[in-house]
């Protein structure tokens, strides 16, 4: 597995874990009451930080393991990696645009801050998830 595929997997794994954790924390804090009353900012900031840290840690540990097996190609990359990265970027971009439009619509409707912030956050999270899946599928199934 090449360096950029490992990074794609690491980001995908970190996104799934941290997004699941964030949703679980919000649901636990709301305890069946109106979820928009939950103090969403600290868990959101922790989720963003933890997601970045976790993907870095997974990439480093996986990179060390790969480097022990095959030191020469552990960090190699080429034009296929750039093509796959561009594909993932395009997929991510489309979901960010959808989230951005959702935020504008919520602002226009005078929605609560909770829904505005979490729509944007969900846009980031879903774009990272779908972009990661697109990259991993392109590495596994092919890019022609």
């Amino acid at each position, binding site marked *: *597995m*090449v360096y950029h*595929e490992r990074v794609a997997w690491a980001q995908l794994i970190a996104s799934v874990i941290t997004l699941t954790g964030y949703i679980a924390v919000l649901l636990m804090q709301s305890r069946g009451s109106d979820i928009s009353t939950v103090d969403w900012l600290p868990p959101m900031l922790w989720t963003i930080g933890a997601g970045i840290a976790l993907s870095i840690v997974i990439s480093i540990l996986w990179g060390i393991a790969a480097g022990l097996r095959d030191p020469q*190609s552990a960090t*190699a*990359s*080429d*034009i*296929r*990696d750039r*093509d796959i990265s561009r594909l993932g970027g395009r997929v991510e971009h489309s979901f960010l645009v959808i989230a951005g439009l959702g935020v504008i619509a919520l602002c226009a409707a005078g929605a609560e801050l909770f829904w505005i912030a979490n729509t944007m956050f969900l846009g980031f999270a879903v774009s990272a998830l779908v972009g990661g899946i*697109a990259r991993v*599928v*392109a590495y596994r*199934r*092919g*890019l*022609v």
Partner: protein
Amino acid sequence: MVKPTLVTNTIRARREEAGMTQADLAARIGVTRQTLIAIEQGKYSPTLEIAFQIARAFGMPLESLFQYPED
């Protein structure tokens, strides 16, 4: 998302005839071994530049390595 390509190639057969490993050929054309595997399996369409480099590595014209079906 992934469209099948009509381009086929005989790189693997030529490489084995030449007694080259995937790592040898990949190093020679400046790509990773995984990219060469993807090209050989038709899972990645190489750029023209890489295609020419592969052809040059075997001393053959492009058409003898890459085939595209007639209409």
